């Protein structure tokens, strides 16, 4: 039987297009120190450090965890570096949790980051390699055809994506750490924003951010000493399927469905829509909210859009989604997944501030990566399972 693991500290940086006030050391330490302070601990209390980020080419440092090690107090300790594409923020949290669950460590610091402004994210993501087919349409061009396929399959109204973007952008105004804050945002502004990769509009896409996120994860005895309420990990799961194979459903990938199913089973959840109080889901383009609602079994196939349409996913809905403003509002790629996991932990801890969902007892954090082939998820609750 695995040990219980709880989140007792959460920290994140102010996310911005260019955090030119800090080095990479300063960026990760800003998040790590906030998490440690939240947990009432110092670096000396930590047994191991788990670092995650997306491709090294963003910052041009190969395996940068090596140079970051002692800036995070890791000298003399075990340190791991996780990289599972866009899902890495979630996977990193899961690896960190497993060190506690395995009974190997008592207190683990986990940190994810991206400092995309050191280079150009689109350059790093689309370096043309000889003999490979170049990206024919940029990053959004990869996802837009899938969104079109979803619209065709589900018959979702064309303004569903606009409604998701409006909700998340309004939520971001309540989040002091969010990168993109548009105080006057309304439906028309999003609807009239330029069409980039039809059917994706500019204001339906995520920004490119510098930022970091950190958490302190501990076992039961350390959690009991925490100054604030812990969020207990009820279940974690990761699933991968190949990027390209014949008959692959990229709109509703099997790996995501399986990952959610095994997660609910582990957490003892039979009706996720009813039993889960709030979600932070990786939504880099607005339309992915309804797509993931179906993939994660919150809605029947082809009906995910109804949740958005009926306001179920709004901050005051029956299943609030992306209370923090989500990836649409802050996207330091390597940290984006962990931000989902950390934000939902803060909801359970009652530490979410202005975007708190009253009385949230069970929360769902989700990250995915690449071409929707890597998934990592967790469920946290206010009591140990």
């Amino acid at each position: 039987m695995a040990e219980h693991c709880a989140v007792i500290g959460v920290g994140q940086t102010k996310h911005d297009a260019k955090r030119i006030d800090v080095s990479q050391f300063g960026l990760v330490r800003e998040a790590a120190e906030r998490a440690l302070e939240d947990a009432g601990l110092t670096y000396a209390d930590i047994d191991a450090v788990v670092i995650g980020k997306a491709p090294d080419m963003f910052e041009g440092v190969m395996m940068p965890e090596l140079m970051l090690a002692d800036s995070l107090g890791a000298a003399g300790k075990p340190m791991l570096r996780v990289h599972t594409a866009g899902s890495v923020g979630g996977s990193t949290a899961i690896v960190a949790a497993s060190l506690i669950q395995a009974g190997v460590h008592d207190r683990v610091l986990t940190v994810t980051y991206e400092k995309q402004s050191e280079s150009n994210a689109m350059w790093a993501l689309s370096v043309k390699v000889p003999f490979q087919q170049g990206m024919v349409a940029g990053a959004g061009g990869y996802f837009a055809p899938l969104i079109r396929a979803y619209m065709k399959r589900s018959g979702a109204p064309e303004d569903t994506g606009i409604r998701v973007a409006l909700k998340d952008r309004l939520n971001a105004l309540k989040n002091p750490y969010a990168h993109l804050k548009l105080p006057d945002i309304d439906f028309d502004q999003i609807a009239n924003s330029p069409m980039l990769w039809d059917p994706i509009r500019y204001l339906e896409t995520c920004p490119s951010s510098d930022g970091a996120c950190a958490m302190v994860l501990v076992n039961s005895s350390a959690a009991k000493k925490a100054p604030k309420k812990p969020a207990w990990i009820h279940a974690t799961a990761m699933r991968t399927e190949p990027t390209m194979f014949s008959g692959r459903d990229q709109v509703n990938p099997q790996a995501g469905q399986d990952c959610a199913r095994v997660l609910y089973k582990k957490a003892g959840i039979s009706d996720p829509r009813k039993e889960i109080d709030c979600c932070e889901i990786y939504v880099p383009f607005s339309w992915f909210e309804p797509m993931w609602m179906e993939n994660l079994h919150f809605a029947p196939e082809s009906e995910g859009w109804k949740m958005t349409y009926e306001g179920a996913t709004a901050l005051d809905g029956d299943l609030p989604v992306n209370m923090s403003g989500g990836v649409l509002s802050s996207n330091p790629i390597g940290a984006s997944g962990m931000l989902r996991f950390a934000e939902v932990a803060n909801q359970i801890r009652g530490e979410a501030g202005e975007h708190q969902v009253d009385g949230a007892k069970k929360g769902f954090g989700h990250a995915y990566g690449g071409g929707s082939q890597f998934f990592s998820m967790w469920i946290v609750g206010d009591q140990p399972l």
Partner: protein
Amino acid sequence: MSEEKQPVKSIVTPSRLEYDFTPGIATTRFLRHMQEGRIVGQRCTKCAKVYIPARGSCPRCGVATEEEVEVGPNGTVTTFCVVRVPSENIDLTLPYTAAHILLDGADIPFFALIQECDAADVRMGMRVEAVWAPEAEWGPTFENIRYFRPIDEPDVPFEDFKEHL
């Protein structure tokens, strides 16, 4: 204080790594066929699906693939997007259409551009054909196929290609 006496806030560190890149056996074979004006996929020995471009394995079955199968040059648009924003490394007049095309005989869509067709007229299920660069310019590269264009055939019903989305 003169401008050059401002405190240093950032440094520029140029980085250049050079590689002699080799794509492997299957991709080499695929591109050699492209050089001859043929699109040749590989059939999985286990699930019998035809992969394009051939990459030497069936990712679903995890087995090496050998048997070659010529596919195309005609195909069906399964889904697409209309690009209205410039991208790094892409030099095309906006807007343009990028599509998933299921080549006849293949079991997985191929990413390509649609041209000679107004973006507003591109449809899921539309039949298209490959437009090749002049033969004198053919090399071992994907770029031998410039783009796809519509052909005068009825659209394929959604039901017939929906498993390839």
